[in-house]
Each structure stands twice: as C-alpha cells, then as structure tokens.
C-alpha cells in the first residue's frame, strides 16, 4: 500500500500521470474485486468495476484575476506584499483609532474589561526577556510580537486578513504597513524613522527568528 502510494506520488510530482491509466487512490479496482471475490465465481453478467480516468474533468478553470483577488497570503519571502507604505508615526494614529480600544494605547494589552462582544485582546508590545527564550520554562511570560513572533511578514498577513476583529478586511494596505511599522517600532525592532514597504518589511529580522525548531517527535518509546 505504502509502496504504491509513494510510487504514485513520484509519478504525480513528476507530472507524468496524464494518460487515462488507473493509478492512485482509486487504483486497480479490478484487482480489488478479484481479491474480494477470487474464490467465488461471479455470475456471468457481474463484472469487476472498470478502471477510472486519472482526471474526471470536474470544476472550472480559475481565472488569474480571481486568484489574485482571493490570494491574500503574505509569506516570509515577501510574496504577496502589496504596493504601499507606512511609518511608525502614521501607524500610531491608525492604531489609536482602530486597535487601541482592545490592545491598549501603546499595544500593552487590555487594561480593563474588553468592549462588549469581543474577547480580551493580548499584549502586543514587549521584548523581555531579552536573554534566551525561556517560554517553555516560565508559564508567566507573555508572548508578544517583539519577543515571540518569528516573521514580520506574519504581522502584516494577520493584521490584513483578520483585524480589527469586528471589522476584518477594512484596513487599507497603507494602514496595514503603518500599523506593522508602529508595532515593530514599539518593540524596538525598527527605528521610528523607518517607513515600511514591500522591500523594507521583508528585510526585517525578528528577535525570535532562530528560536523555532521543526517537529522532532516520531512516536515510539521516547517521549519528546
């Protein structure tokens, strides 16, 4: 089973699976039928299910325009960063108007109870602890953009797709750049004079960048 899947994966990734042969998850129904009914004689008018095409041709072609409209991902290599720019100073004004009610004036988190109908919003600003990365050891530490987020592009991506929580998708690209600039400046990651755009944002190196490791758990007797 495993060998068949891997073989199919190789063929698929190689782009070779185009002919109408019968491979993949629906593969070899004749063999399956034979295995199930091998010892039994099927009536003469009952047959194994015929092979299936590689493709069923279902769905319609997506247009480049609709892909662009839907694909809002911004990734660490800068893919998806739109035209526009914003400074920490501009960001302070946008943040005060659209974010501070929940996240606090300086991004320090909610002081009192949240506005009706929204959950408590977290602290966004804070670099401590500056030495090490003791989040696993110390349950009291609060994760912020400054001390935990490994990529600046994630801040842009998340703010643009999901914030403000009660009105997502309403910020302009310039406003998002400005909010990200404000948060990075508040976290002492960029200078207050820096304007963020697609070139400067992708160049920002976050303090926690090197602290993340890939999953090394594999099951088995050793608990990791």
């Amino acid at each position, binding site marked *: 089973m495993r060998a068949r899947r891997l073989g199919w994966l190789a063929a698929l990734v190689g782009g070779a699976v185009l002919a109408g042969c019968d491979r993949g998850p629906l593969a070899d129904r004749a063999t399956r039928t034979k295995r199930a009914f091998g010892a039994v004689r099927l009536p003469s008018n009952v047959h194994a299910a015929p092979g299936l095409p590689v*493709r069923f041709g279902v769905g319609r072609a997506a247009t480049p325009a609709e*892909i662009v409209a839907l694909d809002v991902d911004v990734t660490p290599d800068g893919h998806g960063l739109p035209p526009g720019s914003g400074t920490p100073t501009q960001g302070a004004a946008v943040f005060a108007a659209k974010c501070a009610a929940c996240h606090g004036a300086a991004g320090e988190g909610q002081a009192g109870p949240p506005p009706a109908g929204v959950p408590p919003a977290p602290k966004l600003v804070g670099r401590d602890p500056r030495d090490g990365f003791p989040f*696993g050891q110390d349950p009291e530490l609060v994760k912020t953009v400054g001390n935990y987020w490994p990529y600046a592009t994630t801040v842009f991506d998340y703010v643009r797709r999901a914030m403000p929580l009660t009105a997502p998708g309403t910020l302009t690209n310039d406003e998002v750049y400005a909010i990200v600039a404000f948060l990075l400046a508040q976290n002492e990651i960029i200078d207050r004079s820096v304007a963020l755009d697609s070139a400067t944002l992708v160049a920002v190196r976050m303090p926690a960048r090197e602290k993340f490791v890939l999953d090394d758990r594999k099951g088995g007797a050793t608990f990791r």
Partner: protein
Amino acid sequence: MHEDETAGQGKGDTANGTRSDHPAEERNGLVTRRGLIAAAAASAGGAILARLPAEAQAPATRAAPAGPSVQAPSPAPVSGAFELADVPADPTRAPGPPTSALGARSPFETPARSPAGVLSGSSYTPLHELTGTVTPSDLVFERHHAGVALIDPAKYELLIHGLVERPTVFTLDDLRRLPSESRTCFLECSGNGRGAFKTPKREMSPQAVDGLTSSGEWTGVPLAVLFREVGVRRGASWIRAEGGDASRLSRSVPVEKGLADAMIAFAFNGEPLRPANGYPARLLLPGYEGNANIKWVRRIELADSPGMFRDETSKYTDPLANGTARQFSLVMDAKSIITAPAHPARLTPNAWTQITGIAWTGRGKIVRVDVSTDGGASWVVADLQAPVMSLAHTRFRLPWKWDGKRTVLMSRAVDETGAIQPTLAEFRAKRGAGTDYHFSYIRSWVVEPDGQVFFAVDV
C-alpha cells in the same frame, strides 16, 4: 490578535460557580421553554429537577452572526421534543406521542457543550456523558477564531491554485460528484487540556479537562483526487489552506499529508457538516491538530514553503523546556482519559462499577490502555472495544470494585509506535511548565473516602 480561549470549561466544572445542577436560564435570567418545563416538573413534586443540568447555549451572550444573508427554509414541523410533564406514571396504560420529523433526546437526558468566550471561543464536548466512540453531531466541540461562518452552499467555492497545472474552482456540487470516502477519526484541538495544565481545579469534569476532542464518521473527497484534477507540479511540498470565516484562518501542512489521507469533508455522522464544524466543506487531516483542519475551506495553494501564518508561528507552536519552540507539531500525541468514574461522580463502596474512558493517538492505532487504581503503583490492562480504528477514539473498560479507601485512578495509552502516555512529571521535564499545546500527559482522578471523585490537580 485575540487570545486562545481553550482554558478548560465544563458544565461539571463547579469551580467557577457554574454548578451542574443549576440551569443556565436562571443564571441568564431568561425564561425558556426548558425552564418552564423544569418549573412544571418541580411543582409536580418531581425530583427530576435536579437532573436538569445547565443548558449550555447562552444566546444572550453571543453576538449576532455577521455574514451573507442565508435564506433559511421554514422550520421543520414538530421537532419531536418530549417534555417531562408528559411522562406518565405508567407508560403501559396510555399510548405515547406520535412519530415526528426530527428525533429528540429523552427529557431526562440533557448533555450539553459548555460554550465560553465571544467571537474567539470554544465549547467542550461532555465526554463524561457519552459512551462508545462516536460523538453526537450536536455535541462535537467547537473552536472558532472569529465566530461561526454561515455560508450559502450555492455560493460555496473551493479554489486550488499555486504549483498546479490547472488552477481550478470547485463548487460543492463538483465535490459531491467526485469519488468520496468515509472514515472515522478523532479531531482534537491542540490546546485541549490547557486549563487542566495551567489552572487545574479539583472540580473539573472530563468535559472541562479534555472536552476539545470529538470523534465520528467523516465523508468527503480525498485531497489526492482533487490533486489529480488540478495536476500538482514538481516542487510542491506544502499545502496552504485558508478558511472562509472572518479570520480567514490559514495553515500550512506538508503535501505528503494531502496525498496520504487528507480529504475535503462535507459530511459528518451521515449528514452535511454543521456550520460550527465547517459547513459546507472543510479540510480534514486525520490525526493532525484540530486547528490545521481548516473549516469552511475556500482556498488551497500548493507551494514550496509554508506560509508562516499567525496560527503556525505566534500560536500553535510549542515552547519547550530547552529554550526553543517546536513548530508544525501537527501530529497529536497518544493520550487517554477516564470518563467514568470522574468528577462529578460519586462511588458506592464495595460495589462493582466500571472504569471506562477513551484513548486516541495521531500515530495509528491504540494497542493498549493501562488503568491504575492505586495512583500508578500498579497497572491493569483494560479491555479495548473492537474494532480499534486507526486515528479514532478507542473505548476502554475495566470492571472494578472500590474498597472505600481514598485512592487515585489513572489511565495510560500505548499506541502502535510504542509511544506511552507520559506522567505529568515526565511531560513537564521534556516540554516545560510554560509549554502551550499538546498536553498529553496522564490524567488522574482522586476518589475520596466519601466516594466523591475529583480531578487530581497535583498527580
């Protein structure tokens, strides 16, 4: 940038003043049909009022769902709900009510989720009120990041693009025409158990401890079938999936998972998905943490790298004791929990009872569950309900007679890779007291001399 709200809630959780024998309507000051029934029953001298636990839904605290207007069909006729007041003294002396369009539970049974939080919230499956391995659809846990997306199926579309030969848009009808599969598997939030780990309370029920896991039969199109429709190109190593909710929640998973057993699921337990669980279609990644199983999935991009989205960087990563944080820790660890006897149960001394619970692992099948009735000093192999299904809740059972002395009950799962559920001490040593997800250590329950069972906060 809201906080996770998976800190442990349960209607058996008496620590927050939420007593299990206290109807929610009273707390909310609402007059509801159920409240009236309860009042009627009470005035009829029924002791059954005490059996009416909190009705978990609290619509008054919920924001009205925003989103496209959906033409609701007119409500089905009689839902078949039964009322306590209609329960005759002797059911053999009078015919009962007729058939009905929709089934309903006995008025004596009122299992409920325990919703918490607004917009970014969760509700917990009442594990201690369920038996077997299948979670009823209306009791499947919820975890939303911007509320429940309400989607008109006629407008639903799934775009698959990126490193593919043919970027394609699939309608729901397209998905339903393609070859489908059904598989039974669990779905667990990787934050499940956070409340029990961070702020444990003796009065936590299994629902409050681990209610963010559910299991049942999912039906959908294998992602591998859709990959053949679009023609995945060389170099595609990651799938980036995006939801159609107001948080447009996005996650990245290795493309191998898509080829192995992922599906675009459109049904659960024999009917279309419920809105809270991703209607009309969601990504299902058997054995992977719940958050990656993107609900209301509207876009899948094949790419050569992960997107490094918020929910795979600042959230859903595991800070470790060694000063790093584990990323893309997608597979759920082997785990189990005793669901009975557990808080708020009370045992009778020197009487037989049954210790039972569920075990599951993201790495295949559960092969053994050990139960200890002496705080881990010794273990007994429990019976597993056959058939044991890969990546699904597995029911274990062990008949037991309590001798009336204080003791601690534990369960310990072993999966087919040989992984053994660790003790809390082993878990803390490896992951750290500040770790944030995948709380898979052994759960323990204290039986006090008076028979009351409590969650063990320090074992």
